[in-house]
């Protein structure tokens, strides 16, 4: 049996939603007055259609486990005698050559107490064969009804998500997608529901200029002390106006992130066989032309160790925020610091994962499904060249 590294935080009481704030502004800082507007991005219908619709029947797959081992495992998890009986009656098991599969009814799933479900799902998430447990839908809030579009999600579906989601740090994880599908009344309704389940929360950030704007500090911050000059003409143009202006922060970003922010990958981006991942996204942050070598994890990490130093807060624009497994000294995810507690990130290679702005704490929740991770900050070593844009290997 494969080892599993899932670590699920079981204390539902600790669940909070710090990311849903009343104040729509970043904390004051050298980045200026930055307004936050949360938005939910859904994968385009054309991409959702590419994904085969799952069966309505939930399948729990137990690789390299026999019928007997699975029965013993389920018995060890489900303590209540009545529920255990129901589980046996309504969960047919099928043993194949190298795995055993279980087909629980919705009644069984709903009957499982939260602790039992957490324990079982933690186990299932250790296997890629269980896609909805391995990569559950992460809802970065406890307000599920604020997360999904009410006009496209039937009330029964919202209730079921509320009922079956399990807490992980500051978020909720939902893995019972097949159970939702029977609630759709038509193929189109099912498509809309599946589309809604691809939601990622991102932000539109706007920079507000007022008579109090400290231009020197602002320019220093967004140009990384003059290292990234691409934003200078635009910032100077704002300084020349007499009016109070609000501009999209997108226009201050370097070319590559501004092009990808709040968008989903398209097929052309995978033409070489690999779609952009978190390494590609992070290490190409200041590059005009993305370097394809950063599609490779090993090359990226070599680059990180050679050209970057670990630093402490306060962070600078473009610094790398890395989530790492402290036990194995292994980096699990990287992204770029933008301002306050916001990063620019691509969470996985999937076509369903857009490039987004995200709060660091939400990011940490998302990547701590299997194991609690630590945060490291890295900064590019001083580059002799005049611009980070042209930083070479």
């Amino acid at each position: 049996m494969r080892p599993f590294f899932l670590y699920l935080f079981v204390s539902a009481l600790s669940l909070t939603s710090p990311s849903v704030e009343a104040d729509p502004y970043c904390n004051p800082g050298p980045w200026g007055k930055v307004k936050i507007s949360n938005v939910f991005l859904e994968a385009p219908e054309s991409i959702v259609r590419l994904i085969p619709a799952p069966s309505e029947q939930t399948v729990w797959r137990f690789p390299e486990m026999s019928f007997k081992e699975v029965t013993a495992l389920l018995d060890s998890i489900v303590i209540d005698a009545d529920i255990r009986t129901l589980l046996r009656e309504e969960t047919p098991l099928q043993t194949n050559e190298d795995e055993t599969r279980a087909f629980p009814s919705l009644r069984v799933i709903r009957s499982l107490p939260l602790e039992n479900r957490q324990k079982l799902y933690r186990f299932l998430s250790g296997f890629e064969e269980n896609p909805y447990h391995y990569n559950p839908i992460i809802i970065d809030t406890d307000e599920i009804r604020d997360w999904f579009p009410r006009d496209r999600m039937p009330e029964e579906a919202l209730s079921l998500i509320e009922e079956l989601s399990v807490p992980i740090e500051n978020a909720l994880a939902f893995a019972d997608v097949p159970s939702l599908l029977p609630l759709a009344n038509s193929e189109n309704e099912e498509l809309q529901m599946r589309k809604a389940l691809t939601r990622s929360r991102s932000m539109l950030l706007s920079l507000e200029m007022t008579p109090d704007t400290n231009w020197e500090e602002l320019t220093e911050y967004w140009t990384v002390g003059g290292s990234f000059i691409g934003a200078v003409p635009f910032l100077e143009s704002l300084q020349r106006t007499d009016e109070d202006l609000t501009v999209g922060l997108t226009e201050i970003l370097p070319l590559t992130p501004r092009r990808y922010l709040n968008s989903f990958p398209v097929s052309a981006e995978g033409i070489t066989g690999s779609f952009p991942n978190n390494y590609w996204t992070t290490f190409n942050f200041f590059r005009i032309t993305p370097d394809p070598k950063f599609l490779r994890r090993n090359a990226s990490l070599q680059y990180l160790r050679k050209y970057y130093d670990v630093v402490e807060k306060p962070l600078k624009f473009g610094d790398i925020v890395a989530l790492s497994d402290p036990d194995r000294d292994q980096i699990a995810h990287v992204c770029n610091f933008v301002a306050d507690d916001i990063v620019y990130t691509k969470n996985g290679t999937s076509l369903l994962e857009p490039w987004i702005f995200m709060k660091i704490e939400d990011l940490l929740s998302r990547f701590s499904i299997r194991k609690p991770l630590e945060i490291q900050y890295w900064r590019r070593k001083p580059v002799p060249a005049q611009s980070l844009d042209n930083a070479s290997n």
Partner: protein
Amino acid sequence: MLLALCVSIAFVNKASSQDFEDSVSKVPTTSETRMIEATTSQGVNSGVLISTGEWGKLHSSELILEPPDLHVRPNSEMLKWTEGTVWSFEQDLPSVIRILQHAGLDEYTISTLTSPPFLAQGIGRIEIRPPDSVILELSPQTRNMLYPHLGSTAKTNYFRFPIRLMSGGYARMSQSPTGLSANMEDLISRLCYVKEGGAVHISDIRFLFSQAENEAERLRIIKTLSRETSLNSWLDLSRPLNKESLVSYWSANGKNPGAITILDAVLESPEIDRIELVHLLPPVAKKLLHTYAEPEQGVGTHLPDCHSTSFSFFSNSLPPRMLDSVGAVANERYVRATKPWQFGDVILIKDADGNWVHACNYIAGEIVFTKNGQSLGRPWVLQTFNEVFASYMENSRMQAFFFRLKPEYRE
């Protein structure tokens, strides 16, 4: 002081299809040609421009961009100004005299300039080194008549390829502090001249440099003269809104799918009452707006220009092939557009000699996305029709043509 001549554009229907035919059917197009006519007006330079239509309610306020130091430092005149102003002719002396006469110089000045020590004759070439007083006293009309005859056909020759100033000329460009002395600002205004069509130009860069106090001022001169207007534009999302119309317009019937993603996202949040235009642009324009090109974005000496940008508007990225030529794409994928103009339509400007001198993309209302020149010192900006046309109005016989990507193409 230079007359701040601004230009507004009137489209005049004119039955003409002389150079265009449908690329598939080969049948001459029936779409009208649009002639640009210059009239004097004040252009757009005050407050917020609001345009309303199927695109929603678009607000725009003016920005003035200036290129970064690194983009103007390669300027050849920064190195050569110590050589002084040279009027170089490839004609013989009698022809040169006729050119000077035709340009309006008086006989005494012509006699002075065509005599030593100001005249130098080489084989097949005549050089005149005009004294400062002559340069200063030339009327705008004389500069306009004379300068196109001077020097080589190299793009770095400011006499033949002058710096095009924004409509409204230097008076408008210098509304926000330039860092130049009052004397230098007066001098610049004095040296500007207006083309027949109304476009404002300046050529005497070397002379200006010679009058500057130091290297820093020379840098300020070239940066100031390279100023370009743009627009900070945003869509007003105050409810009620016609979501269907907005999505349909900005997604350009599926050619700009990213707009659907972001509009769906913002329109379901009632608290979001505006979105900056940059979020709605397709990838290439979203990436390039309000930036200056870097050599890395080109292939050798082929740098992104108006044509490569315009014909890549709906592309996922700027195809390097487009830097060579847009001919094949333009001929195969585009058809003449009719009103109402649609998001992304390509607008081509043709001069009186039949040359395509500029291309840009229609955005909404009066606004276009444009890169006014191949130079690294020219940014990608949002401007009004007026602004773009005014800066290209060499004469009154310019024409604008509108083209649209065929429905079967996505980019």
